[in-house]
């Protein structure tokens, strides 16, 4: 077992562009779930429309990348409004069911055969971010201790983490304002907020749009970082990873989603590499040594780690333990 390699690989993922994309998804979910109490189980849907907004604009219609980015963000706004208009007045559970269904319907629609001329169907879209890498200021990749990134990854990494910082700042500014106070009041009790003269539907819609657009920013950067868009990247488990990140870091905290994303990817990647190495050196029992066993056992270990976290620190790393006692 090469522990240095495991550590390096884990750290590489934890600080890489993918972790930053997940941080953006989790920041959006934090607005929905952490601050407003909206159970959005379809965050990946916002990521999908962001990514396809870039992909379709650039690869299918040959438009400039910046147009694609705007299309991706607008698609997030539109999806939030379409999703929210009929469901935000309903009880929380109907909203939750609708979101997960809509996200999955979008994925199946975008990967379907008839959509192929526009979305590339099951083959997806390639070379969507050439313009982004054409302006790459990095002449050599970032090196930090045991890890190093290529110039391309360095560029998308810096931009994506920069967006994470901006999104965190935006959400922090909003949540310390009276606007954020109304959202938190809605999370606690909608009727009380209504009785105090707040237009609950309007605030829930604003929250859904804001968090959704942050998810779409994640999708845009996901498309750019990978330079491809493929429908099967947007499976429902992405949403649940984002929830895991949020709960790990602490819901309704400012830096919870960032730290959560880093830790999640450190563990996720570290466990995967460890299992692969153990398999390589025949340390695994027979039933775990199949070709698909690495991914599966990594997920099992991840799940166990999250269970331990919820048992020993249910409020997340940055959450306030006082708040949990108040649910009675």
């Amino acid at each position, binding site marked *: 077992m090469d522990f240095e390699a495991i550590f390096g690989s884990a750290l590489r993922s934890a600080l890489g562009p993918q972790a930053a994309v997940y941080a953006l998804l989790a920041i959006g979910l934090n607005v929905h779930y952490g601050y407003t109490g909206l159970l959005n189980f379809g965050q990946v849907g916002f990521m999908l429309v962001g990514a396809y907004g870039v992909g379709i604009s650039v690869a299918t219609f040959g438009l400039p990348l910046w147009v694609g980015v705007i299309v991706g963000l607008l698609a997030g706004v539109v999806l939030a409004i379409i999703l929210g208009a009929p469901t935000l007045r309903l009880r929380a559970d109907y909203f939750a069911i609708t979101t997960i269904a809509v996200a999955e319907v979008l994925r199946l629609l975008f990967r379907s055969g008839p959509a192929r001329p526009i979305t590339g169907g099951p083959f997806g879209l390639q070379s969507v971010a050439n313009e982004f890498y054409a302006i790459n200021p990095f002449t050599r990749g970032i090196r930090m201790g045991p890890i190093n990134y290529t110039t391309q990854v360095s560029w998308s990494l810096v931009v994506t983490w920069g967006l994470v910082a901006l999104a965190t700042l935006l959400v922090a*500014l*909003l949540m310390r304002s*009276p606007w954020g106070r109304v959202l938190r*009041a809605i999370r606690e009790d909608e009727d009380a907020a*209504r*009785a105090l003269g707040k237009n609950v539907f309007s605030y829930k819609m604003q929250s859904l749009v804001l968090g959704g657009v942050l998810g779409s920013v994640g999708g845009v950067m996901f498309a750019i970082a990978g330079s491809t868009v493929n429908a099967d990247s947007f499976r429902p488990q992405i949403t649940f990873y984002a929830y895991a990140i949020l709960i790990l870091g602490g819901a309704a905290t400012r830096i919870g989603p960032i730290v959560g994303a880093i830790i999640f990817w450190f563990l996720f990647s570290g466990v995967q590499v460890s299992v692969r190495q153990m398999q390589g050196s025949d340390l695994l029992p027979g039933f775990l040594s199949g070709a698909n066993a690495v991914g599966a056992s990594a997920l099992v270990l991840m799940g166990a780690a999250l269970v331990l976290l919820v048992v020993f620190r249910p409020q997340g790393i940055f959450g306030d333990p*006082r708040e949990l*006692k108040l649910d009675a």
Partner: protein
Amino acid sequence: MPETTPHTMDAIEARPGVSKPDPILTIDGVQRNFGGLRAVDVDHLEIQRGVITALIGPNGAGKTTFFNLLTGFDAPNEGEWTFEGESLGGMPSHQVTRRGMVRTFQLTKALSRLTVMDNMLLGATGQRGEGFLPALFRPGWSQQEADNTARAEDLLTRFKLIDKKDDYAGELSGGQRKLLEMARALMVEPSLVMLDEPMAGVNPALVQSLLGHVTALRDEGMSVIFVEHDMDVVMGISDWVVVLAEGRVIAEGRPSDIMNNDAVIDAYLGSSHDEPTEE
């Protein structure tokens, strides 16, 4: 308005649907059906400005449903009502509140994971910082926030919650939550306060203090409607009593009128004889 003192009520006839000299709220033909059950069926009712009106009635009389209808939390099948001369039928609840008619709930709705101060500040209306874009620009709303905070501190002092202002509302006792809910409603600067069972589940020692706060609202010129089924409480502080049974107003009058009203006694205790009850 000096002429609308409680004494005005002395001249009013104790009869269901009687008209009042200066009504703040006028209800006409409001009906609410749940399937085959007519939960609320009020032909005509006026609520006098500047007095404490108690809404009483046995369990299931439709008191809370009536409250929900008036405040926009439920929609009637029929009927209309005007508040300060403006029709409120079909108006969403948050707009009802903004017009100065604020309610509390039978099951207290303290916003648990907000501090007591945040609970209070939420009640202030017309906050510039509650808009999405203005929220980002602190100087645009910080002065207003400071003014609201000062007003909230005054109210918290009056309701003896000032020491708790930085605690989570969920950490308060049941009685303190009732006080907080009332104080929070006052942040709206209402002209009509509707209290749904403000004394329910409050320990007897605190009941007196709550009653004092309710009468203080009237003395400051607000109109109060409160739901209660403890007769002793009602008789002690209300200027006018409206009795609801099976959704209908069966009696209204001064507390002394109500205590001797046969229809009311029948409604509470059941008819002991076979005479028809009065309408």
